[in-house]
């Protein structure tokens, strides 16, 4: 029978299940918080960063009273129907503070027999666009072929590689990289292709409430040093019913939400770190006190001070390693299935970070909780190593 330090530690942990399970659960919760909180936080960062880089516009103009929500438009891809005044595009294109202006047209196809699926279509003008095309060029260097669609990463297109709208097949030229929001489920089409979809709809007897010249939003890139307030005043002087949002406005709310989530994640992780260290220290201390006689016996039969310390540390390491494993497993089960739900419910850009970062989070979620046990037990181990075996054995006599 090999009764080494690890085996003694294992037997002590295994045969004191209540104490071991209590400590294990604490470590597991800590590990879960680190893993789920870390991935959650980094996914928000990644989502925000990708969406931010995709936007590329300094200012967006949308119809007043529109159902198009500023965050929803770019961060969630909501495309509820409403239109800007005629001539606004020409006005801003000629404005001294505006460097580039591009219109976008949004509509949602019907989810009935006419169309294969209900999707949001974002029509863009390839001649003036500076928002969608850079994104598309990452997967389609030669631009979008006439009559073709480009689809978001989450859209299922099947093997035929096309989507049927109003009984007409539209080939899919490319599928975009994910951005972590509802744009991943949208279809992007040039104004020319949008016109073809409209024509197909007309043929089938469906009529649009707007004509082709109307736009849902105008995106502006400003000249360096341009005064947004002046631009806003000029637009409002000439046109009614236009809402103007700056990039910081568009991201303001979502950034606040993201940062709140991140703060909560870190506070929770910090809270559990402190709780875990305190609770483990107290638990190990109480346990060591109750087991002084055991340690004294080991000392009597030839255990060195180092051996006693090793047993205490080994027990802590054993419990915390199992706790860390259970915690990361549970954290994975919580995080991955729920991430789609998180995007829908919290309406935040949410995109998994690169694989190496995910691996890094797993390593941290395993190593930090694993280290917490021995760290919390180190003072107790030192005390146990220094116990006076004779005095401890005499205590029982009194």
């Amino acid at each position, binding site marked *: 029978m090999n*009764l080494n330090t690890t085996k003694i530690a294992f037997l002590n942990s295994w045969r*004191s299940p209540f104490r071991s399970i209590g400590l294990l659960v604490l470590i597991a919760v800590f590990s879960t918080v680190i893993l789920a909180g870390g991935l959650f936080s980094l996914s928000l960062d990644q989502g925000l960063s990708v969406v931010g880089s995709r936007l590329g516009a300094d200012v967006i103009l949308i119809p007043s009273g529109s159902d198009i929500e500023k965050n929803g438009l770019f961060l969630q891809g909501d495309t509820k129907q409403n239109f800007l005044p005629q001539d606004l595009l020409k006005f801003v294109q000629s404005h001294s503070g505006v460097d580039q202006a591009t219109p976008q047209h949004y509509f949602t196809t019907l989810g009935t027999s006419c169309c294969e699926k209900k999707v949001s279509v974002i029509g863009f003008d390839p001649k003036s666009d500076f928002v969608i095309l850079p994104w598309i060029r990452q997967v389609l260097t030669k631009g979008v072929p006439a009559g073709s669609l480009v689809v978001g990463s989450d859209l299922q297109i099947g093997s035929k590689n096309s989507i049927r709208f109003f009984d007409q097949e539209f080939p899919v030229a490319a599928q975009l990289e994910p951005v972590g929001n509802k744009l991943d489920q949208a279809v992007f089409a040039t104004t020319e292709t949008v016109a073809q979809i409209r024509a197909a709809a007309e043929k089938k007897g469906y009529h649009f409430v707007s004509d082709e010249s109307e736009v849902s939003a105008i995106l502006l890139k400003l000249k360096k040093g341009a005064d947004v307030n002046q631009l806003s005043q000029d637009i409002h002087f000439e046109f009614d019913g236009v809402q103007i949002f700056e990039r910081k406005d568009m991201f303001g709310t979502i950034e606040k939400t993201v940062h709140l989530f991140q703060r909560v994640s870190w506070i929770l992780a910090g809270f559990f770190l402190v709780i875990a260290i305190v609770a483990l220290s107290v638990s190990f201390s109480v346990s060591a006190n109750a087991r002084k006689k*055991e340690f*004294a*016996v080991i000392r009597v*039969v030839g255990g060195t001070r*180092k051996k006693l310390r090793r047993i205490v540390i080994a027990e802590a390491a054993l419990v915390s390693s199992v706790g860390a494993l259970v915690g990361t497993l549970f954290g994975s089960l919580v995080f991955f299935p729920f991430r789609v739900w998180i995007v829908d419910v919290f309406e935040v850009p949410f995109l998994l970070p690169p694989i190496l970062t995910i691996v890094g989070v797993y390593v941290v979620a395993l190593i930090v909780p694993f280290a917490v046990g021995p760290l919390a037990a180190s003072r107790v181990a030192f005390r146990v190593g220094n116990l006076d075996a*004779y005095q401890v054995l005499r205590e029982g*006599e009194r």
Partner: protein
Amino acid sequence: MILNAKNLWKRYSRRGETFAAVQDVNLEALPGELTVIFGKSGSGKSTLLSILAGLNAPDEGAVSLNGKDLYSLNDEELSRVRNLNIGYVPQNDASLPNLTVLENVILPAALAGLEDAEAVAQRILNSLDIGQLADEYPSKLSGGELRRVALARALVLSPEVVIADEPTSNLDDENGELVFRILAELSRNGTAVIVSTHDPRGTEFGDRLYTMKGGILSPS
């Protein structure tokens, strides 16, 4: 000569007053001899035995085992001596509750890095009439059985010196007699055995008899 104690002193403070639990004690324990130390509670027997066992450094004096001063050794060396050369049976029924009786008995062997001590441990348990309890946990055992487990643990590595502190306390007559017989047999086989007791049977089994009173050891 195996164990030799010279001019041992051990002082403690109690309620601000210092008293000597062990006063200028000299003792030799020889192979094949059972040394019995009689004395009332508080006479200093346990303190003396703990010093002889390498567990409690004296304030003055020296304990040597085969000519080697125990308290000049470092922790590793002294622990090794306690492990291999001295079998100590404490007064209390101290055992590891999460280990079975057999695991408790082979613990010294495990600390010494020996992995095949089970057969020896089982034989000792059988000789102490508790072989059938090998797989039980200490919580299931009576005081007398626990005392015999502690004795078995002290014997598992066949140490040169066995030191037993009140080995028959709380035992019934039959078990007390058994323990003394085992200790006497050990000494006949060449082990130096030192026992503290207030059990009068010690007179019957002891080769050298001492009395301890107020920390002073005198031949009986």
